[in-house]
């Protein structure tokens, strides 16, 4: 089981005051798949991300990641364990260059400390060179290498989203969690993003994808989890989920669903 599954979530719950943001959500993500997470606005998608990445503490349930439990773990430890994320509202290091943003992603996989920084010994210099090289490769990989020396905040919107992915990839994740990467992108940019995601999967990183662009989700995700009001209402292949009356009801409203059933 754990050989096949990268992430097992069991009965995850999260409550904000009177709002049950997540109610006993369970799912499993397999190695090497692109796993979609969809649902109407306020369904709890981002809350699930935040619980998974340690930004929120869950009220119940447990995660097993790569065969080891992942509970009450701080965000930086989650990153160290191999889950990297992007944010729904882009959170780049605005006043640093694109390259430096990615270099910061290498922090967790490198070692130099105060003395290394001050003394600049051979080991530190070699590490710095390796960080720069790898970061540049990642910028090239996501397609923003030309903007390496520009401030992150001066990048075009689509490029910022790509830069965020490069920064996340720099932490060498086993699971890359993307929160609406296609938001605000036009059709061409979305197509390019789709190719990028396919490349990332091909190169061995599992992807958890929150997305509102159904065309993208349905064309790229192996399996999809649908949330509504914090509850799991469906899970399965894109095709199965697409035709699930509960899903249609959640997205279009109950009556439309009934009408669809009738026809």
């Amino acid at each position, binding site marked *: 089981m754990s050989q096949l599954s990268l992430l097992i979530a069991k009965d995850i719950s999260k409550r904000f005051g009177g709002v049950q943001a997540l109610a006993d959500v369970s799912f499993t993500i397999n190695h090497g798949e692109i796993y979609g997470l969809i649902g109407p606005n306020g369904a709890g998608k981002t809350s699930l991300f935040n619980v998974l990445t340690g930004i929120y503490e869950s009220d119940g349930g447990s995660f097993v990641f790569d065969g080891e439990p992942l509970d009450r773990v701080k965000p*930086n430890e989650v990153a160290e364990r191999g889950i990297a994320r992007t944010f729904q509202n882009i*959170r780049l*290091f*605005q*006043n640093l260059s694109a390259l430096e943003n990615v270099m*910061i992603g290498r922090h967790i996989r490198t070692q130099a400390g105060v003395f290394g*920084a001050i003394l600049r010994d051979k080991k530190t210099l070699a590490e*710095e060179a390796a960080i720069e*090289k790898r970061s540049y490769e990642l910028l090239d990989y996501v397609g923003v290498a030309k903007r390496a020396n520009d401030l992150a905040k001066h990048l075009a919107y689509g490029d910022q989203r790509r830069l965020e992915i490069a920064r*996340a990839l720099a932490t060498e994740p086993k699971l890359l969690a993307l929160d609406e990467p296609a938001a605000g992108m036009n059709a061409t940019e979305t197509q390019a993003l789709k190719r990028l995601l396919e490349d990332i999967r091909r190169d061995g990183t599992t992807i958890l994808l929150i997305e509102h662009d159904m065309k993208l989700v349905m064309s790229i995700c192996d399996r999809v989890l649908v949330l509504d009001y914090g509850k799991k209402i469906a899970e399965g292949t894109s095709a199965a989920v697409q035709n699930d009356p509960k899903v249609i009801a959640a997205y279009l409203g109950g009556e439309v669903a009934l009408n669809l059933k009738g026809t």
Partner: protein
Amino acid sequence: MTANARRDSIPPKIWAGVALVAIALALLPFAAGYIGQAWVRILNFAMIYIMLALGLNIVVGFAGLLDLGYIAFYAVGAYMYALLASPHFNLHLPFWVILPLGAGLACIFGVLLGAPTLKLRGDYLAIVTLGFGEIIRIFLNNLNAPVNVTNGPQGVNLIDPFRIDAFSFAQAGNILGVPFSGPQKYYYVLLLLTIGVIVINLRLQNSRLGRAWEAIREDEVAAKAMGINTRNVKLLAFAMGASFGGIAGGIFSATQQFVSPESFGLFESIIVLAMVVLGGMGHIPGVILGAVLLTLLPEFLRSTMEPLQHLLFGRVLLDAETVRLLVFGIALVVIMLYRPAGLWPSAVRKRELEVARAPEAAE
């Protein structure tokens, strides 16, 4: 940046520039001494302030943590030196032992301040650090009873100057036939220490750690999500910043040969912060410029305002001290209005990569 600069050969023009600056810096105390020894002292103070401002710049400029009590670390370093090298406890340790001890103690105090304030930012952090600065000053003011540790408001007097065997940095004397005054001798010690502090700061900024600090400044949540242990990295910023303050304090003690709690008030903290902000937060050359300007400008105004009034009005209408603060205040407001990012803000650090040119050659 520097790592790359090292790989490429440095053009001779730059060497010539460096040589010129070095000669200028070496001759500066004699030029200043020609005008008056007071100006050599002012130069020395400018360098102490550069160290302080660079230390504070780590906390405020790099890590983005607003610290209004920074002068406390300066006080810790100054008193450490004062108590270990004065007749007060009849201890006379050499300066090269005390300076690292002072830096270490200030470092510990930095962590003591940092630990409880890890979750605070902005205004809230400013208030707590302001309180911390005042606490240290009030402690120094009152630790003369029941056991007399700091000698209270009278301060510690007759502090040892820097001394290597019989060579004292405080006394005038000839070196190789050239007459040096005390402040001129100190100037060279300070110059070496300041250059050291600048190099360390440049290297810190351009390192894995420096980037982690800047990441926290830019977006703490994202920094955490990228795996940065924000708690440790912030504590390290406080500790590093404080230790530079401690070193500056030790030198202050030795050059003044007298310390009292008065020297470590809130106004001093604000002046150092103003140096960082005016110069350009997070930009080392800017911070140095800020420190030099804010040390020299008030002294310049002090020495010119009275003669100027005599010239214009035939008598002194306003006390020099008043005019000095007035002009100073106006200058600050004007600079902040027209150059909100500081006089010399940081530009994007360009990284000309070898990988960009020849991916396979880089290693």
